[in-house]
């Protein structure tokens, strides 16, 4: 049994979530190959080769894969698939875009957002905004799945020396083209990898007031997130949305500020170790999942909190 894992990267850096996905692959068992599809991505391939859990790194370095367009990468993976029992990617917008396409090309289903490996063919995954956990058995010849990073501890990233194989196949569907990207630059840790997250909701009132949270975040080394309401209102960009249809986080500490606690928001953060809620409405549902609740006006409580850290 050999498993193919799709590396998450931006052509320069291998993203840490790849290590969590590899951990899920290890739980399935068997040899693990890691695919780096990109352009000018040698540094990613080098980093990939250092991971002890990886037996072989496959590198597809070509312009056609620069932006990991689903039309092209799915065909590349389809061509490799016959050698593998499982194909795994992280639950990121990149893999969620590509892997269902791979699955359909292989005439198999995809298991989305797998959170536990029961055996090589049986997996647990959340449904209904995490209000139910399904155990699903797949009889497909090749199991294609995305994996929830926060549900698996990362494997070691260094000390290995995997064989590197360069792939020469170029799959360019020619039907899609990258135009541009607006990527948020931030000095703060990445939301899904941070050990502390502080998020703001509609109660923040406007985008400027998120500065109150940024100051706390800077003191704690935290990432800053948001509810859908805060994103929809234009306070902050979409990449900050935590929840069922945004990002799933599970930090050691999650601080929800001016967030009511709708099921869709809870779906994205209720696996956090410690949850703090600051809300002026003592009936807010967020208090039902909070370890520590503070009923207070956030405009007083948050600056005070910042002062005392």
């Amino acid at each position, binding site marked *: 049994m050999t498993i193919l894992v799709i590396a998450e990267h931006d052509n320069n850096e291998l993203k840490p979530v790849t290590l969590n996905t590899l951990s899920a692959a290890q739980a399935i068992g068997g040899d693990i190959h890691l695919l780096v599809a990109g352009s000018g991505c040698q540094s990613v391939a080098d980093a990939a080769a250092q991971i002890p859990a990886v037996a072989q790194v496959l590198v597809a370095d070509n312009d056609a894969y620069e932006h990991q*367009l*689903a*039309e092209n990468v799915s065909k590349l993976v389809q061509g490799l698939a016959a050698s593998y029992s499982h194909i795994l990617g992280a639950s*990121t*917008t*990149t893999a*969620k*875009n590509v892997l*269902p*396409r791979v*699955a*359909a090309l292989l005439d*198999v*289903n995809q*298991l*989305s*957002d797998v959170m536990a490996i029961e055996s090589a063919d049986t997996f647990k995954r*959340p*449904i*209904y*905004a*995490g*209000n*139910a*956990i*399904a*155990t*699903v*058995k797949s*009889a*497909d010849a090749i199991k294609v799945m995305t994996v929830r990073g926060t549900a698996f501890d990362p494997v070691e990233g260094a000390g290995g020396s995997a064989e590197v194989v360069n792939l020469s196949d170029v799959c360019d*569907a020619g*039907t*899609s*083209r*990258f135009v*541009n*990207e*607006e990527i948020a630059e931030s000095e703060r840790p990445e939301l899904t990898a941070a050990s502390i997250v502080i998020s703001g909701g509609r109660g923040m009132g406007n985008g400027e007031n998120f500065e109150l949270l940024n100051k706390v975040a800077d003191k*704690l080394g935290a990432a800053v997130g948001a509810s*859908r309401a805060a994103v929809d209102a234009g306070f902050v*960009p*979409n*990449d900050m949305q935590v929840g*069922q249809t945004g990002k799933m986080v599970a930090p050691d500490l999650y601080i929800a500020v001016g967030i009511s606690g709708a*099921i869709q928001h809870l779906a994205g953060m209720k696996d956090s*170790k*410690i949850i*703090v809620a600051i809300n002026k409405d003592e009936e807010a549902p967020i*208090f039902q999942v*909070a*370890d*520590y*609740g*503070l*009923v*207070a006006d956030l405009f007083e409580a948050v600056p005070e*909190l910042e002062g*005392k*850290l």
Partner: protein
Amino acid sequence: MKVLVAVKRVIDYNVKVRVKADNSDVDLANVKMALNPFCEIAIEEAVRLKEAGVADEVVVVSIGSKSCEEQIRTALALGADRGIRVDTEDAPDSLSVAKLLAKVVEKEAPGMVILGKQAIDSDNNQTGQMLAALLDRPQGTFASKVAVDGDKVQVTREIDGGLQTVELQMPAIVTTDLRLNEPRYASLPNIMKAKRKPLDLLTPDELGVAVSSNLTLLSVEPPAERQAGIKVSSVDELVEKLRNEAKVI
């Protein structure tokens, strides 16, 4: 250009689902059902394309039992011109749905297919991508902006790092994210009018698709419940607890 929109009947997003006592599945008996919110956004986008003169017909398709005609009628009330139901048991897997939709697309030959990025029941986020693969057409997933320009469409996508814009050769498949638009409400006259709009029935047999699945649902459990915590009375107490009790700062 014709736009085809695929919609799904799901539990209403305000309802917190319960797991059946025998852990065989979730309990949907007497639960309020609705149009999947992302599908509402898909309908809205198609109707706006028609209002802008870019599209000339909006066809809505749903796959499922008779009950999902209620959601097709909702889509018709929101502005779709006609409906198609493909008659199946309630929840075929994503691959089967994509195969059925691919056949409907071959029949209807739309310039664009719009779907929700995910259904809030199965939370799969797959069908649009699978449909695009089966048709060998490009996809613009998690769309927050759709701009048609001749035989191409530019789709701005919500990605983990921010926004990405891609240009797709049409026919193209688009899946909607939350910020694409704000769906309208159906007016009473439009709800009445929708009752008279055409709704055709197709079967998987007619489409030449055998609906089956390699996935078996073994059990469904409720998630681990969190213990309710405590209320602290001041910021001082909060900081003290986080430092000395939880030891997370």
